[in-house]
């Protein structure tokens, strides 16, 4: 039977998943509903795993599906479902177009590297942090790349189009979209990984997946036991090596006619290429007979292949060390101070804004329950950042400290959390943000507003302002008489910490009202209102 159809199916599926995942992260117009987001992400391994671990009693079907697929057919997840893997395939494909002579060949596995990374990751998790998972999970990594690198390009093109159309008085097709600025550190980390992955993929195919990616390591391990495997039929194989040259996992040892299943990503290039149809996909004849590649650590360390050299103690560890050093200085206050220092000089005549806000905690999204819980689960995929209609969710760098790096926090300079919105909980695939009903959302207190009178325009300039109270959905911030004017006052127990006040307060560089996070979310009291009355009778005019 001609098996090359397998590759076509794989390519179609891969493109489907790649476009699907790109779409949900790039969708700045909110075209796809919450249900679509959930569905699109459900087959992604790490979020499905996290959900299974975090939401008691639920085994995400996506996790079962991926595990079953792997045990049946090998690492099809890596070749057809993982967007980061597919992105690498696109790069490899381009590299083969560009460099006409590009050939892969069998290389030794980086076994020590992969298991060290996986081990470290588990160790860090045991010590109570998932930073390394956040940084390395391919789905989350792709999410950030799509959100912070692809999306701006799409938005830029969109805005050019919108400008052209609006000058022709057409407003109905495209509209301008303003991206919230992303912290340079977050952007830098994303770019760094993007470049690393591109360079690796350009030169060495799926090296990233087979040396660094923790999901690749786990699924690779499982693949050794999968039912269907690609085998080089010893009777027909002429050892021409064509399969080896197209194997982007560099796992076909043509000399021994063996395949390193821990690295084979089931891309079926070999099957498609073999002129003798000797590369076959079948229920493994004799797993034992096919001696897998010798993985002596010594070899791994010594046998450096030709071609671009890649330092195995990759920059990851360097970066890791650097970040660990930064962890010492991590605090909301420092990050905040750095941010305001950059903001300098907007033109305004107010005298306020001299006293810094005193934020002790970052604000985690409603439904995350506590900062600690949130930091333990969120892998920083940025899906919620993309989906948040108000743009208030922004990736953190050190706002939560090192443990919460790249996880979203509520950035009230970027936006406010809409009182009637529950989007982030609906779509978070890991369970880090739990879905809230509207009633729950309305009383979820993620932080509390604090007023700095000495910064307030009413005090400093002696003119009315009230932007804070204007935006407050519960009237926890309300205006009370202050001479001829009115000045804000905060009722803490009905404040939900949505940040509408902080977002609206026009005082720079420091706001006169700000929200300090609740490390553990609380329940706010419902605002009490009296029924409004009017003395005016029907049909009567007051003048």
């Amino acid at each position: 039977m001609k098996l090359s159809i397998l590759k076509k199916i794989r390519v179609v599926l891969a493109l489907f998943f790649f476009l699907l995942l790109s779409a949900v992260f790039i969708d700045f117009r909110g075209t796809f509903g919450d249900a679509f987001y959930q569905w699109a992400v459900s087959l992604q391994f790490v979020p499905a795993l996290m959900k299974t671990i975090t939401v008691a009693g639920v085994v995400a079907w996506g996790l079962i599906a991926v595990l079953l697929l792997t045990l049946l057919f090998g690492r099809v997840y890596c070749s057809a479902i993982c967007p980061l893997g597919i992105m690498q395939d696109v790069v490899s494909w381009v590299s083969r177009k560009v460099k006409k002579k590009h050939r892969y060949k069998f290389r030794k596995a980086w076994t020590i590297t992969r298991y060290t990374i996986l081990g470290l990751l588990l160790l860090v998790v045991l010590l109570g942090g998932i930073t390394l998972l956040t940084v390395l999970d391919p789905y989350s990594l792709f999410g950030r790349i799509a959100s912070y690198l692809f999306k701006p390009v799409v938005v830029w093109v969109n805005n050019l189009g919108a400008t052209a159309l609006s000058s022709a008085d057409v407003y109905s097709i495209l509209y301008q979209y303003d991206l919230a600025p992303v912290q340079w550190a977050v952007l830098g980390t994303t770019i760094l990984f993007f470049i690393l992955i591109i360079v690796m993929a350009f030169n060495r195919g799926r090296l990233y997946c087979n040396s660094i990616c923790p999901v690749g390591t786990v699924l690779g391990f499982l693949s050794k036991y999968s039912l269907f495997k690609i085998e080089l039929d010893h009777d027909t194989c002429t050892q021409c090596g064509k399969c080896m040259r197209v194997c982007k996992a560099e796992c076909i040892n043509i000399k021994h006619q063996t395949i390193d299943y821990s690295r084979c990503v089931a891309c079926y290039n070999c099957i498609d290429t073999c002129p003798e149809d000797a590369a076959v996909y079948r229920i493994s004849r004799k797993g034992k007979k096919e001696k897998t590649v010798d993985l002596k650590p010594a070899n791994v360390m010594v046998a450096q292949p030709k071609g671009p050299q890649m330092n195995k103690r990759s920059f990851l560890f360097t970066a890791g060390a650097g970040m660990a050093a930064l962890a010492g200085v991590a605090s909301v206050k420092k990050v905040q101070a750095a941010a305001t220092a950059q903001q300098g000089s907007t033109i305004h005549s107010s005298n306020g804004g001299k006293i810094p806000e005193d934020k002790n905690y970052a604000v985690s999204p409603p439904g995350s329950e506590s900062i600690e819980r949130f930091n333990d689960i969120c892998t920083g995929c940025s899906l919620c950042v993309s989906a948040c209609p108000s743009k208030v969710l922004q990736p953190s760098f050190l706002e939560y400290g090192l443990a919460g790096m790249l996880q979203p926090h509520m950035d009230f300079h970027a936006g406010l959390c809409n009182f009637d919105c529950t989007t982030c909980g609906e779509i978070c695939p890991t369970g880090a943000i739990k879905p809230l009903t509207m009633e729950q959302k309305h009383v979820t207190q993620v932080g509390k507003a604090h007023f700095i009178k000495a910064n307030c325009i009413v005090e400093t300039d002696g003119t009315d302002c009230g932007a804070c109270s204007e935006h407050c959905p519960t009237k926890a911030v309300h205006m009370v008489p202050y001479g001829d004017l009115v000045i804000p006052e905060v009722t803490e127990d009905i404040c939900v910490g949505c940040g509408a006040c902080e977002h609206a307060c026009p005082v720079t560089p420091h706001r006169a009202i700000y929200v300090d996070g609740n490390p553990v979310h609380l329940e706010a009291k419902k605002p009490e209102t009296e029924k409004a009355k009017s003395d005016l009778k029907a049909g009567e005019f007051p003048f």
Partner: protein
Amino acid sequence: MKRRDFIRSSVGAGVATGAALSLGGANSLLGAEAETDFDLVAIRGGEPEVMFDKGIAALGGMSRFVKPGQRVLVKPNIGWDRTPERAGDTNPKLVRRIIEHCLDAGAKDVLVFDHTCHEWTKCYQHSGIEQAVAEAGGKIVPGNSERYYKHVDVKGGVKLKETDVHELMLNTDVFINVPVLKNHNSAKMTIAMKNLMGCVWDRGYYHKNDLHQCIADFLHFRKPDLNVVDAYRVMTQNGPVGVSLDDLVTMKSQLISTDIVAIDAAAAKFVGMDPSEINHIKLASEAGFGTMDLSKLKIKRIVV
């Protein structure tokens, strides 16, 4: 065609009953139809579209303000992600009827936008205004990005000397301002003048530089040709966003005037406030943008 017939016939009936019932109904029934030089028309007791039909007829119809081929800008309050029941935004039925009248008067285009406080697509959608505009045959225009705003000088402004206004402010012929009447924690009330804050990009500037003076100053740049105040459901407390339905009083009222100061003064009275308590009304009146002394106005009162 049907629409036009409907407007005509309902208007005839309305003016007659309105004049008969109105408190200041000194005008004779016959005289009322001919006379259109009112400073202010106040209507009570009907649905928003019915009240507008009658009110605008009392002013001589929309053709007094909109000439064939003109581009009309209608600026409702669409600032908040609220459903029409919550009355955080202008009543969509009123917006729709105003657009229909403009198109009937021969307007080439009727364009609608607001610089919203909440996420704009949600505001446009949930307020019902996006749909109302589409159904009426107008064009809804985004106001969400600074790129839509152009820098202008506000000649004569005391505190607001320059600002960035939405490009529609510069390339439309007729400007109809359609605020919803609401309580406001610091501007005291948000009515017609305050609604114009949604035409500029940097609202923070107003708050930082003497809110009331800036609100009044904007009139140096552009005064609406017509103002229609929606007071169907009125948020009399906890404005401008509102905490619950308890904040509302159903007043079934509407005001129409070319004088933005007069209409704000009259609207304030509806919620029991004295116009002079509201600083920006006073400032605008002093600057000569209109009259806040209601006793000096020729008012037409209509009860539906």
